[in-house]
């Protein structure tokens, strides 16, 4: 249907897809909080939340309700506008990255080819980098606007940490780009569908990417910006009610998105072995592909939690040394080797 030279079905389809992806990331983030507490409990030989609903499944709703009804406090000497802007940016940026991730192959409904990716832009990885690096503004603005020394210290830590770890992350990805020759996430997945998963060619690159993803998400062992026992909670120290909730929630969404990204870049995304030999219909293929991606993503989310409850936090100088003196040289070496191999292969 084309009216006023706008393809309205295309618009509806995209709006539905965007809402779906948004709801999915919110729900996954919500249940990550539950999962986090369960995993933490199990690792520490406890049971974890089990009172609200069966297996404590209503716990995230109770937590959310509690956060909504808490008193909202804005410190007198804070910058009111920036104080509200901080968590808003954190949340907005966290939700934006999901736009370029291909959730599944195309499906056909009533003769229309629908791509299950909000935007198949040819600069997908660049887009993610651009948006992710904006996430630090939320933390920085929130920490600075609080007018509290601990918040400020935490946001300075966050800024330098994220900048330091973006470099090896980018370098690790450059090696991947040399291999695939494209920035579009969809094409990267399609290449892995035809051949082997990228982690086979880029194990070191994946390891560097994984470590940097931990640092970018402010997760333990790199959770210095919100070190509870050093900075009283870090950049969200002065926040209460749902603004605090947004900061915490943004972290879980980031975790979900970076897990999905790792699955997409290195573990075949929605592709799973022998998917083209099963003889499934196109829609079934998309559905199973989505499930495959989802399982991979959940595994990485679990991995994030598993690491968090195993490894203690780094000291700040150790963090910086690891970033600049270990990961960047390693990533550079990885890039050089990949480049040399690619050059030899093409000649």
């Amino acid at each position: 249907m084309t009216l006023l030279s706008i393809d309205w079905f295309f618009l509806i389809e995209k709006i539905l897809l965007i809402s779906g992806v948004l709801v999915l990331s919110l729900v996954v983030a919500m249940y990550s909080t539950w999962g986090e507490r369960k995993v933490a409990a199990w690792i520490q030989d406890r049971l974890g939340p089990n009172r609200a609903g069966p297996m404590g499944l209503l716990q995230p709703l109770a937590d959310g309700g509690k956060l909504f009804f808490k008193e909202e406090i804005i410190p007198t000497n804070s910058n009111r506008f920036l104080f509200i802007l901080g968590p808003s940016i954190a949340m907005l940026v966290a939700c934006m990255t999901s736009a370029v991730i291909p959730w599944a192959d195309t499906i056909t409904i009533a003769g229309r080819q629908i791509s299950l990716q909000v935007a198949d832009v040819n600069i997908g990885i660049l887009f993610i980098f651009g948006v992710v690096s904006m996430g630090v503004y939320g933390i920085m603005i929130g920490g600075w606007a609080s007018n509290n020394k601990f918040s400020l210290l935490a946001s300075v830590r966050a800024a330098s940490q994220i900048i330091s770890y973006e470099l090896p992350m980018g370098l690790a990805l450059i090696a991947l780009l040399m291999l695939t020759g494209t920035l579009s996430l969809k094409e990267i997945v399609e290449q892995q569908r035809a051949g082997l998963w990228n982690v086979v060619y880029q194990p070191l690159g994946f390891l560097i990417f994984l470590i940097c993803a931990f640092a970018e998400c402010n997760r333990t062992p790199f959770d210095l910006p919100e070190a509870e026992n050093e900075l009283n909670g870090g950049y969200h120290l002065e926040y209460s009610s749902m603004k605090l909730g947004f900061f915490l929630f943004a972290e879980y969404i980031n975790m979900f998105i970076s897990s999905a990204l790792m699955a997409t870049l290195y573990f075949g995304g929605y592709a799973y072995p022998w998917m083209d030999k099963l003889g499934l219909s196109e829609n079934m293929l998309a559905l199973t592909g989505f499930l495959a991606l989802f399982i991979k993503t959940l595994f990485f989310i679990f991995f994030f939690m598993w690491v968090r409850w195993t490894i203690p936090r780094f000291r700040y100088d150790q963090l910086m040394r690891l970033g600049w003196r270990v990961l960047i040289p390693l990533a550079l070496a990885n890039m050089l080797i990949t480049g040399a191999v690619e050059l030899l292969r093409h000649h």
Partner: protein
Amino acid sequence: MQTLTNRAKPVDRRPMTFMEKMYIPAIAKGMGITLKHLFQRKATVSFPEKKRQFSAVFRGLHVLNRDEEGRERCTACGLCAVACPAEAITMEAAERKPGEEHLYREEKYAARYEINMLRCIFCGFCEEACPKDAVYMSETFAPAMYERKGFIYGKQDLLIPNPKTSSGK
């Protein structure tokens, strides 16, 4: 220097080897340990549904005992109150009237007998001091309450049910 025990272990201060500096094997080992704990038996007891067995000498809330005919054993001698290190027990004595022989075993009885469970330290000295086997400590503990005055247990809270009048219980 001579060590006092043979348990002391010298600290290994050798510089780390390359494998140790990589940290990855150590991290993998640690993650293996946490993964093992993921499937281990949990230490938690889901309290209201499951209760742990008390030890044989557990000292819980007090009860005031009756004899075989359902008469109160307490004679309000005050020895428990004297023995109590927390001074949680107070009582008032009264004389048994003719016709009350089925209620009280001896000529003197406690008209009022109160134990403040907030003061009580559950040491069990009252139980030991009682010459009439009237005070015993049971296997229950004080429940949570919203007000302090609920924790002052009177005779009606402490006396065990009369075996004569409430038979079958």
